[in-house]
């Protein structure tokens, strides 16, 4: 075995280096050095975005075909790292609170280990490596969800997450074992030759898919979402809703097009059903929610449905529109969660929609950003969300799914309604005792500022999309 291959995986290795640095720092640093902990982590993780982009982009296959990377995968890794950096930035205030202060280091380590897992999910070209990556990305998340373990909700959310996760994982392994049984290999490249679309393989594919469907939280694998999102600490919810989902969607796209290419008709039908179910059912639930985090959980399920529209065509155009959608979704969703986190701190409790009443009077800037982020999620031009939806719809339309696009469009109207409910609460509904003015700390400001820039510029500066479109896949 050639060990130098390990060092060719630059993003993974450098992330591990950061990981080890944090571990050591956590052990040795005391007193006033500890106060610099957060700043140090941010300073380590932000340059890593650049490292992923710059050094991870060389197309290469390692470990006898188990590991593969190219510029699109490198971009995806960089985007996930960028999103994680935004989440970490937002976490500062929460990490300083008395219940979490002493285990600050654990948060970073758990979070970064899931990130490593996602890197391997993206780069895996072998089902076992993929499965290990997937587990690495799931199990620490359960710890993170239950991070506020003294809060009943958080512990409950953690246990629900871990139980469902195990269930999904088992289903997935079951699927993989059937695939192995019918094709005799676990390499993606070899397996395609053995895929015939027999009922056994259909069974295997759906079982396998349900494991990823759990991570993406597509209906009917979504039921953990609302409970876990609500109970988890807000930064963790933010992480769950964009980063973990983004990695899973990308992997799903790869596997469906690379491994299950002979079964395109089958998985297109499957996705068709799941997209319609996800978007519609999530919208039905979202309208009824008053708890903001629960609401965002259903919003994220319906957004997952929209992302799947890019997958269903299985084309290169779908790939670039999907990556672009994830990027836009990262900034818009993290803006919303960043704001929820901020005002949660002021209210010291869970945020329901009525808490937003009259927010504009006391927190005009936060309200404005929230409005822009919600507009972007709803897909109103000229914000980035409009363009991302546009490209996703276009890719599905070009692939011939006209009725599906039409159903999705109707659902966009419904989603506009519930996003605007929050905007209405902030600006119009009168309230004598709105949440008092909150001052963001520096880290949250940087994060929210980056989100704001992303929401406004990602759409107008079209070269972002065109740049993604030019990358090889």
């Amino acid at each position, binding site marked *: 075995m050639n060990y130098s291959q390990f060092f060719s995986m630059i993003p993974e290795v450098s992330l591990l280096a950061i990981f080890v640095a944090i571990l050591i720092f956590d052990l040795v640093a005391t007193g006033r050095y500890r106060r610099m902990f957060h700043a140090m982590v941010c300073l380590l993780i932000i340059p890593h975005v650049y490292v992923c982009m710059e050094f991870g982009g060389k197309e290469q296959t390692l470990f006898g075909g188990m590991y593969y990377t190219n510029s699109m995968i490198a971009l995806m890794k960089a985007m996930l790292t960028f999103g994680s950096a935004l989440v970490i930035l937002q976490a500062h205030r929460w990490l300083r609170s008395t219940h979490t202060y002493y285990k600050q280091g654990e948060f970073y380590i758990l979070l970064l280990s899931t990130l490593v897992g996602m890197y391997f999910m993206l780069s895996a070209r072998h089902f076992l490596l993929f499965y290990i990556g997937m587990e690495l990305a799931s199990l620490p998340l359960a710890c993170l969800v239950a991070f506020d373990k003294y809060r009943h909700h958080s512990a409950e959310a953690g*246990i*629900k997450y871990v*139980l*469902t996760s195990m*269930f*999904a994982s088992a*289903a997935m392994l079951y699927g993989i074992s059937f695939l192995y049984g019918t094709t005799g290999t676990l390499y993606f490249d070899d397996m395609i030759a053995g895929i015939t679309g027999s*009922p056994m393989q*259909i*069974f295997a594919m*759906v*079982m396998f898919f*349900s494991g990823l469907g*759990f991570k993406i939280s597509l*209906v*009917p*694998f979504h*039921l*953990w979402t*609302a*409970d876990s999102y609500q109970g988890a600490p807000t930064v963790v919810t933010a992480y769950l809703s964009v980063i973990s989902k983004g990695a899973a969607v990308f992997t799903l796209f790869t596997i469906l097009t690379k491994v299950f290419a002979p079964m395109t*008709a*089958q998985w297109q*039908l*499957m996705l068709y*059903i*799941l997209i319609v179910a996800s978007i519609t*059912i999530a*919208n*039905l*639930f979202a*309208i*009824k929610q008053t708890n903001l985090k629960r609401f965002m959980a259903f919003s994220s399920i319906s957004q997952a449905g929209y992302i799947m529209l890019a997958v269903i065509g299985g084309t290169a155009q779908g790939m670039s529109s999907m990556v672009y959608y994830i990027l836009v979704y990262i900034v818009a969703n993290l803006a919303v969660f960043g704001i929820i986190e901020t005002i949660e701190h002021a209210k010291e409790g869970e945020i329901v929609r009525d808490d937003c009443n009259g927010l504009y009077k006391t927190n005009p800037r936060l309200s404005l950003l929230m409005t822009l982020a919600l507009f972007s999620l709803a897909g109103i031009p000229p914000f980035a969300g409009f*363009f991302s939806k546009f490209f996703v719809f276009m890719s599905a339309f*070009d692939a011939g799914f006209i009725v599906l696009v039409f159903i999705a469009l*109707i659902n966009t109207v*419904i989603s506009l*309604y519930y996003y605007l409910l929050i905007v209405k609460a902030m600006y119009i509904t009168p309230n004598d005792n709105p949440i008092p003015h909150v001052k963001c700390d520096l880290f949250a400001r940087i994060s929210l500022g980056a989100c704001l820039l992303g929401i406004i510029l990602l759409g107008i500066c*079209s*070269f972002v*999309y*065109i740049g993604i*479109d030019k990358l090889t896949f």
Partner: protein
Amino acid sequence: MEFSIFILAIPILSFLILGLCGMKMPHKAAGLLGTTAIATVAILSYIAAAIYFGAGRNDEGLFPTLIPYALQWLPLGNTLSIEMGIMLDPISIMMLIVITTVSLMVHIYSLGYMKGERGFQRYYAFLSLFTFSMLGLVVATNIFQMYVFWELVGVSSYLLIGFYYTKPAAIAASKKAFIVTRFADLFFLIGILIYGYYTETFSFTPTELLLSSAATVLPTALGLMFIGGAGKSAMFPLHIWLPDAMEGPTPVSALIHAATMVVAGVYLVARMFPLFIAYAPEVLHMIAYVGAFTALYAAIVACVQTDIKRVLAFSTISQIAFMMVALGVSLSDDPHKGGLGYMASMFHLFTHAMFKGLLFLGAGAIIHAVHSNEKSHMGGLRKYMPVTHITFLIACLAIAGIPPFAGFFSKDEILAACYNYSPAMGIFMSFVAALTAFYMFRLYYLIFWGKSHYEEELALYTAGKTTHEPHKPHEAPATMTTPLIILAIITCVAGFIPFGKFISSNGHAYDIHIDAAVATTSILLAVAGIVIATIMYAKGDSKITQAINSSMKNIINAAYHRFYMDELWLFVTKKIIFNCISRPIAWFDRHIIDGAMDMLAIVTQKLGNYVRPMQSGNVQSYSVWFLGGALIIILTLIYFA
């Protein structure tokens, strides 16, 4: 030419800075910031022009078209995409000079004119936005980019007309301007879409192959685009918004509604000129007739208006119509074979921007001095405002077409092009030119000669008949007179620019030569117009004037009311469109569309209740759903896929 990006970047930055932090700045700082920004842009434009024309012609004898920036903005499908970029060619360079020069003058002038106004910073922010949009429009590399900036121009015009947002008239005017031009833009957009769909590109210069496949629809597309241009350039019958737009601050009228935005339509036709000539000459000639009628109509109306800004507004409509006519009478793209009109039109656009800007700024100085737009409050002002008087006179001579002022040269080329097209068109336009001289000098005499309103009021006051002490008119401050003087100088010398050397219909150099017969006729007609105006108005209301007025009472009354065009539009919209189209649509919307939406909402709510049990909070049941869902999908796939 890479620096050309700054021509766009600086105004938008200035807009962002003034718009975001303007309210925290003192007035003076905001004004100076805006002015400095636009001064820089003006200098950059002059440098760009010097480099561009200095580089000389290429081997084919043309000035090369430069595209320093072009990037794909929005891919639509496989072949069609929207691009954004900068294109420099002779006419866009010429427009850059016009826009930045007039804009700079207006910026300086406004420092004095708008001093102490509420929202001073907002005003400068909007001016920057407008300048940015207009510059973006002229350097557009393709028709879609032009459309984007075209709409931005419309928005900034709307914002500036409604600048005094507490004044109901201003709000109404801004809405009117926006709605009318937007209505016209709808046709423009349809034209663009047809064009893009059939030629598979938004470029101004598609390849012959693409064009030939779209040859049959090109006249329709170009005609629809012209309607958009007619809206912005206030061609009859879409001109109704321009006179009302005078509710905005006067410098804005000078910038937007005289020199730059309103010629966007002319610019559009000039941009598409090669296509018009090659594929739709009949549409081009239609434009000429529309233009000729508009020119006459606006000139007649201008003769009887009493509000000086309205006179100038109608004069603008008439002069823009001259430019349209000049484009429309072109017979080929060779200036020696009937293509003279293109050059003449661009030349007139250039000179008109200068002297009309001057007229408006002069009018602003007068309004600043007497605090009224009405001619009855003026008269005899030449003693009190010498600088304004002289510069205004120069502009009047220029627009009347008296040599050696700029207007003579450009108008002479237009008339020559008209005679070349058909003698009837030439005679018609010469007559309109004579009318122009008449109404401009009527305005001039009413403002600066005759009995002074101030002296009359003063006499009444000293005699004790009124208690209100009249306000003595005074010359404007230096910030306002300097732009007047600069523009006056340009007006004096601009006619001698060998314009054909830079811009002509086919790009080759063309020597302007004055056609003696046309020139003599037009000078004689202009002098005749001036003489009549002198007899009638130089000494206040003379007996002849009253006699003429009473004998032509009906016509004058009708013309004063702009031949009831506004009323006609109101009738058409309120009585016909509202009742026959809008009400049924409103009913449909309220009962069918809203009803369907309500139903959707009710169904959604109901379904929401039904699916609720799914989310029980019970992990065991989650697993059941999970597995059950997977099994259903498996069965579906096995049996249906």
